[in-house]
């Protein structure tokens, strides 16, 4: 069906699915353009993980000899996966903070005033985060792999890692978007970020779980970030095995779906409360 308001024709129900996709793409484009136009905001999420990778590679190079440490060519090779996860954690928070800013400054109302699917508003924003996550992952690999950090799975493995980075970004973006929707405050989203960082440190991002003991190991064992990192790490260290690909994609996909469902639930709760 179409609605004619004077000479402007509006697509409605007949092609509503196509229209929803078009709207979601337009929202994703906006989200990406916004990020690209704030270099000062995205620079830390691009360079801090690299700085940290270089620092830890030089500081912890001898730890690779600890019993239980997997066979690696360098600590840089070991930390490649955690650099990607760390980077997309940073980047996803930026996207979620932008959603909170939209809510704070009223732009979200403008979106709600349009006859769009509410899901599309959120998915568009998340798709922007995912695209940025893909870009970050490719950037980290391009910069770090030449420094004694080869990917055993080769180029196909690198592509899976980039894809996985995008999915992780989508998952973290969805989790942080839930905070944005619930609080409507960019400060609250930024404030929640240290929690993610703590989770990262209490995971197997920087050392293998096999070398841990006590409470630290117990936390790392139940920490989902451990599994996100280990999935990616399997491609770097084990090669392009079925198990490595599944772990690199399945774990983030499951977390991602759960996080998106939760974020959509938060959005519906917010809209129902209006």
């Amino acid at each position, binding site marked *: *069906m*179409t*609605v*004619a*308001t*004077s*000479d*402007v*024709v*509006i*697509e*409605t129900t007949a092609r509503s699915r196509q*229209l929803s996709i*078009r*709207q979601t793409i*337009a*929202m994703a484009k*906006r989200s990406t*353009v*916004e990020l690209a*136009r*704030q270099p000062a905001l995205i620079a830390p999420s691009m360079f801090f993980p690299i700085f940290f990778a270089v620092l830890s590679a030089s500081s912890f190079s001898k730890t690779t000899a600890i019993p239980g440490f997997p066979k690696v060519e360098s600590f840089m090779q070991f930390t490649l996966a955690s650099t990607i996860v760390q980077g997309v954690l940073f980047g996803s928070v930026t996207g979620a903070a932008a959603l909170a800013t*939209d809510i704070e*400054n*009223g*732009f979200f*109302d*403008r*979106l*709600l*005033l*349009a*006859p*769009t699917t509410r899901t599309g508003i959120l998915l568009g924003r998340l798709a922007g985060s995912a695209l940025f996550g893909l870009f970050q992952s490719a950037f980290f690999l391009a910069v770090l792999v030449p420094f004694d950090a080869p990917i055993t799975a080769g180029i196909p493995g690198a592509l899976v890692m980039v894809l996985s980075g995008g999915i992780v970004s989508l998952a973290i973006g969805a989790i942080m978007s839930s905070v944005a929707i619930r609080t409507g405050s960019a400060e609250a989203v930024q404030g929640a970020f240290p929690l993610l960082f703590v989770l990262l440190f209490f995971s197997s991002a920087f050392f293998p779980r096999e070398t841990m003991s006590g409470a630290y190991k117990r936390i790392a064992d139940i920490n989902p970030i451990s599994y996100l990192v280990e999935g990616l790490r399997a491609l770097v260290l084990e090669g392009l095995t079925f198990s490595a690909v599944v772990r690199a994609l399945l774990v983030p996909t499951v977390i991602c779906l759960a996080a998106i469902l939760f974020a959509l639930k938060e959005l519906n709760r917010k809209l129902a409360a*209006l």
Partner: protein
Amino acid sequence: MNTFASSSADPIIAQNLVRYFGDVKAVDGINITVKTGEIFGFLGPNGAGKSTAVRMLTTLLRPTSGTATVAGFDVAKHPDEVRRRIGVALQDAAIDPLMTGTELLRLQAVLYGIPQAQMKNRASELLERVGLTAAADRRVGTYSGGMRRRLDLALALIHQPTVLFLDEPTTGLDPMSRMSLWEEVRRLNNEGTTVMLTTQYLEEADQLADRIAIIDAGKIVREGKPQDLKAGVGFPTLLITVPSDQTERAKAVLATFGDMRPTAEGSLGVGLRGGANVVTDVVRKLDEASVRVQHLEVNEPSLDDVFAEATGHRLEGAKA
């Protein structure tokens, strides 16, 4: 192409609309009917409930009770149908400062389902209409307040709505930008768009609105054509300023010429029963009572007088 049958109903009808925020009753049973082709002014001070009422009429808030139809559709039952037919420029012109004018118009076009083929022309047409063609490819963050408001208006018009809601469209604008926006609102109205305008500016309501409703503390306290409402107040208002130690004597004198009216702090006002002709008598009596008049003015009834008469106080910032 199918089209929805146009409704014969008035474009905006609100009946006993109520909205609570917790225990606070922000809108208290308002009834509004806006006729096709009208500019309807919703006048009231900050916090009176104007924006809450508009948010309910534009589907952004659910009414706690009561019903409203906009463009022929119930706002609670068919919000998407309402959204397709209305244009809304909200208070503060919430526009993404990182995007350009063109980009925002194209995004808005997609959100309203305007086909790709029409999108480009429609965006250019609207940018030209609001005088932003030269700034179209600049980021909105570099726009002045007036330019943002004009872009906001263009965004609200992307789908050629039949009903346009403008929530305090000129707040914070300089006089030139305000006049330019008024001109555009008049032009749109002349082209057949029904406009509901909320404002806290008396002059704006007086200049633009065919009919107005005055809202205070969530309730509509007066409704009608501005000239009728002003005529209803009747007498002109005499405003005087006197030294503070002579206020009581001055009040006693003024009360003999009519009913005292609310004024801004520091001045006294009376509705002159005998009209402007008795001003010299008032001055003479004040002089006889040894009251030194520092400032005197006679104002024909204004919407502020209507507001003051209805509520017992004057609009914030209004000249008394």
